[in-house]
């Protein structure tokens, strides 16, 4: 028995020792901080020599010899605009949000610690591929399991719910009036445009709506104006001509099979580690409806990676993704004493999804971090009590403020509690930062350790 176990360990070790590439996929809806995270990650890694990263164990053991950006083999993918992001920070701007896919490869040279592998090679290297893409497109993932009818049904159910139902009226009106008339190509185009406008309204609304699907309707990339985007869901109570339905279905299928599927297949296959970024603070600001909607959206996303027999993603990913890290960035907007509550909140929100993923034998970890720290925690005196607040420059009006955002609950709240408790998390501007050294951060080292720490044997 013991020999068998040791043999197994040896094989595992060899396996991990030989695998020198790791593909990290940073997922997250738009606005969850993907670009800031990747910028900070590259920055921390490149400046590791003088960086404070105590919880990245290999670094704490002084085993990291050097880090550099190298060219990657997928030459057709644009490079992650790291330099642009850094120069944006220099001019006190947040990096531009992502509008297209990009990649970056970091190579880390390290000293081998394992006493057996050390004899084979004292130094080794690890290539990390980091993939960035617009969060909007991520929401197309669940489309892969739907056909036009199931999608229409699902979409209309979603559109009837608060808070998006308020915004849907206009679109419903136009679809009702237009469809009764003839269904020429121009009408379809017009309706598709109305549909897109509805989605854009949802995205821009201040209510915190997340499940905006299909993603390329709001962020078309190079598909802008292409006829493939001229379709829309049909409410159940409307009876359409066969010809029209066929046309819409055809386009939906084309969208699903020729745009969404290749995208995920190309960029998401052979992903080893997945980092899911969640903007908890936005949800807290927006209240119960937004919370429930995000919860359902994320659950759908997480489980898209591995539910059901028919799921192609499961077949493709199952042996590969072995770690899911659910992370909430922007922890610097929260007074540090509430970080633990924020972590519990995040983990409570996704407990079901986490449970399902855990059942597949995938490690799930939760972490609360801040990619670029732009505030400073302070104690402010208020009504003779000391209140832990954060101080920073507000993004909206460039005024320095001290903000107490409200108390994050560590237990799930009831609907009533949601309506009673208010939150005010505000976005901060980038202060004066020295960008040629390590960017200030919260727990980036913890995230690095969770993502790639086990690869430094």
């Amino acid at each position, binding site marked *: 028995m013991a020999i068998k176990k040791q043999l197994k360990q040896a094989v595992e070790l060899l396996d991990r020792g030989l695998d020198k590439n790791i593909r990290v996929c940073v997922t997250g809806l738009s606005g969850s901080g993907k670009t800031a995270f990747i910028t900070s990650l590259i920055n921390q890694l490149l400046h590791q020599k003088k960086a404070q990263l105590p919880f990245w164990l290999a670094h*704490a053991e002084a085993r990291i010899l050097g880090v550099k950006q190298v060219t990657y083999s997928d030459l057709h993918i644009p490079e992650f605009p790291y330099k642009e992001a850094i120069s944006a920070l220099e001019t006190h701007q947040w990096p531009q949000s992502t509008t297209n896919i990009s990649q970056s490869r970091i190579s880390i040279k390290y000293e081998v610690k394992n006493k057996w592998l050390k004899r084979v090679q004292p130094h080794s290297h690890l290539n990390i591929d980091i993939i960035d893409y617009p969060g909007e497109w991520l929401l197309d993932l669940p489309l892969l399991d739907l056909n036009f009818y199931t999608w229409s049904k699902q979409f209309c159910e979603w559109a009837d719910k608060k808070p998006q139902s308020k915004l849907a009226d206009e679109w419903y009106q136009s679809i009702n009036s237009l469809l009764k008339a003839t269904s020429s190509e121009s009408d379809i185009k017009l309706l598709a445009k109305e549909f897109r406008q509805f989605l854009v309204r949802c995205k821009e609304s201040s209510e915190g709506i997340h499940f905006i699907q299909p993603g390329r309707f709001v962020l078309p990339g190079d598909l802008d104006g292409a006829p493939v985007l001229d379709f829309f869901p049909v409410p159940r109570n409307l009876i359409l001509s066969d010809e029209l339905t066929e046309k819409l279905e055809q386009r939906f299928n084309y969208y699903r099979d020729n745009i969404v599927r290749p995208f995920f297949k190309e960029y998401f296959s052979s992903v080893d580690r997945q980092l899911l970024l969640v903007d908890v603070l936005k949800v807290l600001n927006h209240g119960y409806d937004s919370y429930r909607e995000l919860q359902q959206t994320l659950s759908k996303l997480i489980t898209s990676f591995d539910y059901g027999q028919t799921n192609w993603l499961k077949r493709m990913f199952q042996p590969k993704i072995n770690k899911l890290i659910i992370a909430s960035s922007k922890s610097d907007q929260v007074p540090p*004493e509430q970080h633990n509550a924020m972590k519990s909140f995040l983990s409570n929100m996704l407990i079901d999804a986490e449970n399902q993923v855990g059942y597949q034998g995938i490690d799930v970890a939760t972490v609360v971090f801040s990619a670029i720290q732009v505030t400073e925690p*302070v104690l402010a005196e208020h009504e003779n009590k000391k209140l832990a607040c954060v101080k920073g420059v507000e993004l909206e009006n460039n005024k320095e403020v001290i903000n107490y955002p*409200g108390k994050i609950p560590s237990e799930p709240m009831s609907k009533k509690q949601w309506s009673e408790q208010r939150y005010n998390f505000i976005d901060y501007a980038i202060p004066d930062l020295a960008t040629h050294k390590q960017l200030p951060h919260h727990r980036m080292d913890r995230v690095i350790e969770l993502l790639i720490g086990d690869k430094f044997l």
Partner: protein
Amino acid sequence: MSDQPIKFDSQSVKVETVQLDDTVQVKEDLSQEQQKFLPVMANGLKLKKSEKSNKWLKWFGISFGSLVVTAAVFESWQFIQQLLTISTVLGLTVAALLVSVVVAGFGTLISGRIKSKRLEYRKSIQQKLSSYSNSETYGKAAKVLDEVSDEFSQEVDISKSLALYRQTVNTSHNDSELIQIYNKQVLSGLDQLALEAIRKHATESALMVALSPLAIADMALVAWRSSRMLQDISRIYGCPQTAFGRLGLTKQVATNLMLAGASEFVAEAGVELLGKSVAAAISSKMAQGIGVGILISRLGIQTMQICRPIKFDEDNKPKLGKIRKSITNKILSMVKKNDKTLNKGKDND
């Protein structure tokens, strides 16, 4: 309601930067009770210690103590009076001497007591820090760690590692993170130092025992060396003990050795002894030396565990292996040297 969000203009409100200290005071359940016996435990249930104490024994102790003290006072009073009748100068001198003896005695006792109090306090710190690192608190550990650092720096110059620690931590770290960083950046250096002290003392006493011809001398040697080692270790961890205090510390170390699991002890020490049957074959005295060396290093490691403000976890638990190697190497090299000289002698013949 204080839970509701508030936004201030940054000029309009009095502000202090967050010192990582008490924003909320909590009462910790610090069970001060000292374990003296291995408790009977299963599945989280534990047999309570029996509360019965022997009243008669207490009474006896108190009355006996007061009897001795009264007798001593009476005797010395008589003695001084006797001397006074012989000569006033002699009487006064002796009286003065007596007073100085009493004062010095009390002084030693009290200072020992204070220092052993420090050890007790260290234990409470240990409990506090371990409760912080298990629960997710914020802003409480920094103060305790600073206090501990002050105690350390009285005995060892830790300014460099302390500066590194200060550089590493920032306001976002919670208590358990702070403790982990402190553990890695400050305490691990002290651990190295303590292990070096253990290695030195253990090797020395192993050699002495291996060379000494008398069993009784062995015992004295072991007592002497281990006492020195306890002093060194307690100093390294910033809670130095006097002779009296060391007695208490020794008692605790012995109890801990027992509590640490007799099984562990037997397994490790036993294997170490048996494994060195080569040494045993060469000379039983050498084997004894190695055995004593290992025993002393075990004592040392237990002392580290008592004095260290943060308990060891599985990763950084000190290992006997290195010390053992150093001891056996030393002794075996001595044996080889002896062999060589013997062989040389033979060659000469």
